[in-house]
């Protein structure tokens, strides 16, 4: 081994290797910081999401959903229940309000997190009117369903796990 110290080539190789390590380290720390910030918003919004879903679905269970309709501007969903009551879910870009009972705010992070109001859909599936005819081959179930989807957009990515969805199956005779 050369006892006079390290040569220029050795220094260059060492610096090169340490740079590679530092590069990985920097990337790892940046990733971890992003994930930490993002996880904080995601966790908060998941709690909001779970709360909205639980609140509305409990009414579906307890009162029985009769109908769900979407306003023309898509900013309100009107729920009519089988006991004759009705409630409205009011939606803005970053908030939801259900009747006068509860309101929720969607937190924004670096991405442009917001409710995609234009894409809100209500899919009702009901028996065909032709089902009185015994030979009919249409949907003749005694049940009907409602599937309401309120998409949440987080930046460019769309993740179904962020969306707020309500689902109900009930006797078709009690729904409209």
């Amino acid at each position, binding site marked *: *081994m050369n*006892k006079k*110290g*390290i040569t220029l080539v*050795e220094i260059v*190789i*060492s610096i090169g*290797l*340490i740079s*590679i*390590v530092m590069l*990985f*380290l920097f990337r*790892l720390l940046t*990733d*971890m910081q992003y*994930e930490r910030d993002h996880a904080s918003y995601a966790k908060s919004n*998941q709690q909001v*999401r*779970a709360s909205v*879903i*639980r609140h509305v*679905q409990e009414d579906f269970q307890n009162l029985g959903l009769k109908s769900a309709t979407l306003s023309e501007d898509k900013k309100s969903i009107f729920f009519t229940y089988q006991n004759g009551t009705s409630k409205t879910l009011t939606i803005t870009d970053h908030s939801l309000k259900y009747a006068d009972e509860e309101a929720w705010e969607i937190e924004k992070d670096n991405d442009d997190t917001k409710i995609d109001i234009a894409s809100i859909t209500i*899919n009702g*599936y009901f*028996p065909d009117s032709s*089902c009185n005819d015994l030979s009919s081959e*249409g*949907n*003749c*179930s*005694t*049940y009907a*369903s409602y*599937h309401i989807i309120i998409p949440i957009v987080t930046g460019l*990515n*769309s*993740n*179904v*796990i962020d*969306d*707020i*969805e*309500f*689902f*109900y*199956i009930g006797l078709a005779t009690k729904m409209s």
Partner: protein
Amino acid sequence: MLKKNGFVFVETMIVTCVLLTSLMIVYGLYVSSLNTESRYTRYDDPVKLYESYYLSKYFQSFDFRYLIQNIKDNCSYSDQKICSNESTCIWNTTRRACEKSYRYELIWQGRSDIFGNSYAKESHFFDFLWSSLHIKNIYLITSDISSVTQCTGDAYNKYQALCDNSSLMNYLNSLDNGNSNEYYMIFEFETKRDGTSCLNGSECLGYYAYITVGDV
């Protein structure tokens, strides 16, 4: 004793290698914990739980025992079962269940598994639910899952169809053991990340939820 004229090249190389190895281990653990976390968000999601609740109520509103019997009976008439995939089809599962007198593992992969030729009026509604909710399979297994999750030796032979589904086994391992008189009705949903259908298996993510049902 270290030399007093600074680091030599070999020492620098060793330190760099140690740092690099440590970093790789930390990064591996970090990526693996991220993947686990991301997988766990697909377990028992509130939306999927409510969907499963209503689906379970819907199935049980029919003669649930009859539906189960319908599946069990299929094993005596195996030639009536049409199957596109021999390795995972209900025909093999139910036939094996009959041969070994095991009746705890039922997999529903579509309407005929559940309704057979009965309840024809439900066909359109059922197909609509199956496709719009992106259901892949419905499993009915005993809630005492300790024997199911072993997946070795006899347990593997007994629950092969379940053991071969590693995503499902990950989910089952996250559940607690229940009452042996009850059953778990486990719903396996499969979509792309954006919620659209994944038909060819690419970019598919599995979502799981379970509902406990009484002794069937």
